[in-house]
């Protein structure tokens, strides 16, 4: 890669990097929000949650890769937990990786959902332990009385038979909506296959759209795809978080990138129309 930009030789790679860093720093020092139009898939994600009556059951399958996923986007998690709790939706959290357990315990503790929303562990929400075995383990809890036969205890060591939530929610036939979260893309289709298709339950997804795009409109009815959609969600539910700030920073970076692209194209077109030397990219 050239050290200097042909279109504007005074701008070097180093200066470009410095400009990008300064642009990122501006919203940190002077926070401001650029307009965030809410996309159809984010709106649909929210609408699915909003349509659930109080007392509905949400099965949350989480396979976000590691704890850093939560650390990087914790304020989105908070806005999501707040939205769920404000709707009085019951949550069964099932992690499909080692870090998911920690993320759920930390998010619920940091948002203090028991103190702020009156949620009771074991009645309104429950966090299950990590099950190894990927798709086969997902299939194991998708049978009749699957929650009772697939797990022996919850993540805190309580036998599942003693938890009040599992007296009324015995298997997936008692679940109203499935929330699928993943970063390793093969996990999304796994949960859709074993849960949504088997029991014909609608789902909403937090993860890259292309992994579940084939199911959109048939089994998936809403999608939060990376930071942009997280910012849209925070904006939509009125619980602003860091993702909105990050989007402002990203928009400024994109502006610089697009400006440089336009200048580069313009310079190349003018040079070519004047019969100048063609560049290596020709």
């Amino acid at each position, binding site marked *: 890669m050239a050290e200097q930009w042909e279109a504007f030789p005074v701008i070097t790679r180093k200066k470009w990097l410095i400009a*990008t*860093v300064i642009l*990122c*720093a501006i919203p*940190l020092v002077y926070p401001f929000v650029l307009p965030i139009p809410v996309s159809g898939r984010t709106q649909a994600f929210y609408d699915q949650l909003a349509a659930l009556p109080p007392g509905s059951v949400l099965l949350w399958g989480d396979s976000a890769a590691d704890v850093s996923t939560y*650390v*990087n986007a914790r304020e989105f998690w908070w806005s999501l937990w707040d939205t769920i709790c404000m709707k009085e939706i019951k949550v069964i959290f099932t992690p499909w990786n*080692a870090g998911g*357990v*920690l993320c759920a315990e930390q998010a619920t*503790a*940091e*948002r*203090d959902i028991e*103190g*702020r929303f009156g949620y009771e562990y074991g009645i309104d929400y429950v966090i299950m*332990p*990590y*099950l*190894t075995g990927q*798709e*086969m*383990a997902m*299939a*194991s809890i998708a049978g009749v009385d699957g929650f009772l036969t*697939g*797990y*022996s*205890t919850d*993540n805190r060591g309580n036998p599942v038979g003693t938890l009040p939530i599992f007296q009324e929610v015995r298997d997936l036939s008692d679940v109203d909506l499935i929330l699928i979260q993943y970063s390793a893309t093969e996990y999304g*289709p796994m949960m*859709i*296959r*074993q849960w*949504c*298709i*088997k029991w014909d339950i609608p789902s909403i997804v937090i993860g*890259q759209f*292309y992994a579940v795009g*084939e*199911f959109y*409109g*048939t*089994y998936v009815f809403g999608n939060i795809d*990376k*930071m*942009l959609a997280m910012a849209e969600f925070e904006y939509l539910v009125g619980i602003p978080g*860091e993702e909105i*700030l*990050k989007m402002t*920073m*990203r928009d400024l*970076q*994109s502006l610089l*990138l697009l400006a440089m692209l336009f200048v580069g194209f313009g310079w190349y077109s003018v040079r070519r129309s004047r019969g100048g030397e063609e560049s290596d990219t020709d």
Partner: protein
Amino acid sequence: MLDDLEEARKVTPIELIITWFSVAISIGHFTLMWLGDTYFSSFGERWYVGATVAYSFFVVFQSLKANCFDFIAAGKWWLIIPLILGLLSFTRLTKYRWAARYPVAALSGIGLGVFFGFNIRGSILAIITATANELVTLQPDPFSAIISFIAVVCVITYYLYSEKYATIFHSQTGKLYYVMRLGRLFMMASFGYLLGYVSVAFGLEILTTFFVVVIKRPILELLALL
């Protein structure tokens, strides 16, 4: 409500010590970029690897306990069979490595069985039905319905490998050669969109996340302490 939240989020002295220790080993790890491989950076690296392995081991043990050992203790003795089958994987480290083929065979067979039926239903039949429905009802709009139907048909022709039936699509003199070419264009547009979206999104998000997580949060939390 916000006061309650602030109260709940107050850190204990132990948590504070752990946090500062984490800060120290994180800074140590970062010094690798400027100072090279030193005792300080190696200390951070080994702590990270060690803690990750220890945590993962603990969680996997909890998982085995929850869906295997507890059930065996409760009287489901037949679960010893899959447990033994799983343990056979470790024979790969011994001279009886042939025994490790049994868990692999079981995993492959059961995995395929679990996957196959629902995959046909969800990834093939449901999509054919949805595409046909969209064409008939012209949903979500007439242009999208027609263009997606054309794209589906053209892309399928690209993957016809039969010499007898696919020559008209793949041979340059074939009557339907341009149908396959159109399918290739649809695929290139799709892959280009994905690559652009994923690459740009990832590239730009790394820097913003670094600023917010590594710079903004610690500064605000340090200011809150003062």
